[in-house]
């Protein structure tokens, strides 16, 4: 069926680095075609610096037409292309290909249109997540998905990873909050997927693109839905003597018919580290802490806050504190928001995992992780989105100590295996990238992987878009199964 692909030049005529750069400089401002080692260096990895590779070159096009031309050229010579937003990804999704081009969307940073009546915004793909809400605030609106990296990460990267944050339990992930994307296909066609309407005819390609980690096309524009800013939000902080009690309280709140705007949990390692770092007033003696935010009309929030407080008491909370105003709410969240840097203070390095489990297994999984922690001889702290079962175990290690990085990776792999075993998955929001490609066969059978690869081919018959990411080849799958999916030394260089 792939007969529509244009014939390719032979490998022999493939341009070298200098030649290719010259071709790009004909239509891209030469200063935005990067070839020198020093300027290339910051592009060698994304937020997961364990995996780094120097690209052949980096381009920063300024118009969609330039993106199209880059894609046509690369397609013609079968040169790999890796799209890059802000590079905050945590699965090495934007890690370069050694023989390929990094296409940065950094210049695509304009908010094109805000339609307050229809509650939507059209953005270039390099617009930062937080900038959307800042611009919409004038109209009493905001953009729902709020990854913790929202100051830096881009809407294009959010689509790439189907990102979510604290608010996604109630307001959904990226996939629930976008209306359309403009995309440049691997062979340089400019297409519009979706519309201003809530759904469109034909196959739901928007669903496939969201979370596709730059493997299906280059996103140049995104139209997002905006939500009305709620009248009020309040947060209840509750400390518990055991993680099981806190886990049960999470189910309890849902059973009450309340969908919190955010429901986050921390274990005692995280509480202690965070409190030392931020002084937010967290109960350091607690074994687990819940932060439960409720938003809505004043009347509704009052009603739900009272219910939540009573419920946490019934589930054995040892301490409860509810924010009285926005300043106190910000203080209570401060610890959660600074959890990652706080870990950086108590450990030279940490490795952030990302798996999702059915909530009912929270207690069991957290307890099993503590057992693994002893087995691997590495500490693990937990700060996560309890409301939707999305775990972010932070494995603490020291990369300078012989073997610790490898142990951290093996520990991480075991955690993901446990997530799949209890009915969950290997990544909730960070994506597969390079990092979790070995764990894909834990979750998918060979025919399923084959089907996923066939989906990729429908968009990218030559496989030049972000190769080696997201979905393993079947041959690699068999190898990964044979080695029981335990991480081996990756082929890429360790930073």
């Amino acid at each position, binding site marked *: 069926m792939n007969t529509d692909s244009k014939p390719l030049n032979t490998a022999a005529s493939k341009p070298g680095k200098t030649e290719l750069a010259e071709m790009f400089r004909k239509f891209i401002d030469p200063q935005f075609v990067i070839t020198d080692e020093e300027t290339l260096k910051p592009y060698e990895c994304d937020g997961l610096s364990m995996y780094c590779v120097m690209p052949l070159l980096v381009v920063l096009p300024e118009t969609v037409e330039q993106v199209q031309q880059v894609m046509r050229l690369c397609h013609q010579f079968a040169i790999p292309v890796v799209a890059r937003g802000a590079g905050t990804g945590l699965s090495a999704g934007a890690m370069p290909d050694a023989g390929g081009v990094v296409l940065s969307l950094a210049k695509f940073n304009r908010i094109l249109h805000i339609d307050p009546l229809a509650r939507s915004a059209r953005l270039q793909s390099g617009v930062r997540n937080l900038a959307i809400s800042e611009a919409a605030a004038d109209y009493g609106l905001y953009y729902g998905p709020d990854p913790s990296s929202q100051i830096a990460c881009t809407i294009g990267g959010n689509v790439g990873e*189907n990102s979510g944050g604290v608010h996604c339990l109630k307001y959904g992930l990226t996939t629930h909050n976008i209306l359309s994307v403009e995309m440049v296909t691997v062979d340089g066609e400019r297409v519009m997927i979706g519309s201003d309407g809530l759904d469109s005819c034909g196959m739901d390609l928007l669903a496939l693109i969201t979370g596709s980690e730059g493997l299906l096309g280059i996103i140049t524009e995104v139209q997002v839905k905006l939500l009305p800013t709620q009248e009020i939000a309040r947060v209840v902080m509750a400390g518990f003597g055991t993680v099981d009690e806190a886990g049960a309280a999470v189910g309890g709140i849902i059973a009450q018919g309340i969908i919190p705007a955010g429901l986050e949990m921390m274990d005692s390692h995280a509480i202690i580290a965070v409190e030392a770092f931020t002084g937010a007033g967290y109960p350091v003696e607690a074994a687990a802490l819940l932060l439960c935010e409720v938003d809505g009309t004043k009347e509704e929030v009052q009603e739900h806050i009272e219910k939540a407080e009573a419920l946490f008491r019934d589930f054995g909370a040892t301490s409860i504190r509810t924010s009285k105003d926005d300043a106190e709410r910000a203080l209570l969240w401060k610890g959660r928001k600074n959890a990652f840097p706080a870990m950086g203070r108590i450990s030279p390095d940490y490795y952030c995992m990302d798996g999702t489990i059915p909530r009912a297994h929270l207690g069991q999984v957290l307890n099993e992780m503590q057992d693994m922690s002893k087995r691997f001889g590495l500490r693990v702290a937990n700060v996560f989105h309890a409301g939707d079962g999305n775990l972010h175990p932070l494995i603490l290690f020291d990369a300078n100590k012989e073997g610790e990085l490898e142990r951290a990776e093996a520990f991480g792999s075991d955690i993901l295996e446990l997530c799949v075993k209890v009915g969950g998955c290997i990544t909730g929001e960070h994506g597969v990238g390079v990092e979790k490609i070995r764990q894909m066969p834990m979750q998918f059978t060979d025919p399923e992987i084959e089907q996923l690869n066939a989906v990729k081919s429908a968009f990218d018959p030559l496989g030049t878009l972000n190769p080696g990411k997201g979905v393993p080849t079947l041959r690699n799958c068999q190898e990964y199964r044979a080695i029981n999916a335990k991480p081996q030394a990756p082929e890429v260089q360790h930073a």
Partner: protein
Amino acid sequence: MPDITKHLQQQISEARNQGHKLAIVGGGSKQFMGRKINAVQLDVGGHTGIVDYQPLELVLTVRAGTPLSEIETALAEKNQMLSFEPPCFGDRSTIGGTLACNQSGPGRPWWNSVRDQVLGVNLINGKGEKLRFGGQVMKNVAGYDVSRTQAGAMGTLGVMTEISLKVLPRPAITMTLSREMEHSEAIRFMNARAAEPKPLSGACWLDGTLYLRLSGAHSAVEATAKHWDIPVMTDGDTFWRQLRNQQLDFFAGEQPLWRFSINSSAATPPLKGPWLLDWAGSQRWYRGDSEMATMEALAEKAGGQVSLYRGGNRTGEVMHHQQPALQTIQKRLKHSFDPDALFNPGRLYSWL
């Protein structure tokens, strides 16, 4: 109820060997949708039953042939609901058909669509392989989102056998407000109310009357009704049920029914005839005879797309046309799931 997955796989293999095409039928309640096709029936309506329901997880897993009525009864017992309020055309509307046609009711802009609430599907592809994508958890970005891609594909990508969905608690109370209002004023008014942080869960305009639905905590609903100062309608629930199930007089009769999915605040296309505005203006229904191309141009002007939902000529195209590059991708996708083009050939588009 027995699991008939193996039986379905067998029928698919047979069809493949004998060169038959298959028309997937859930309950057949949506036979009027899509294009007319000529194929042997593959009945998934017998594949019923709730496989797993965890109210605390807000997750339900069901076989695809399960009637909506059965699902809604089970959820109601736990005070939960299918938040997308699918239309039930008769007792046999199934969850598989609902997802395949991406059917959502009046609450869709606030409570998401069936597509949005899908967490995972089990699917038999055209090679007869049983595949599972997604799962039972809210967040999952491993692999491509094949589950949500089933929404609106009308069974062209495979036979769904099992579907996992996110369910939601039922709101404590519901109240309907209604007042007379002129068409274009209603568009502005509905959108303006939707931009306020109030518990709005439905906004519809029909025959010179605006209907707003509030759902949520008692205190919030009552305070909002007072604040907006619009008369409360008695028996509003009947109105929303009839809207959802397309039982209002507007839907009766032989005139072709067109569905516009457009920018919610756009001016209504200038067509003479009855209009029904739902989803705060994002979904608009029109009754009348017209050419597909004319309607498409009007829909595009309003920022969206149109389909010939019911009646009219069902041998021509009934769905908004696709850009050539997207057409190519969809043909290749179809081929990747169903290389022999067994399932519902031509149901969605003549070329698919």
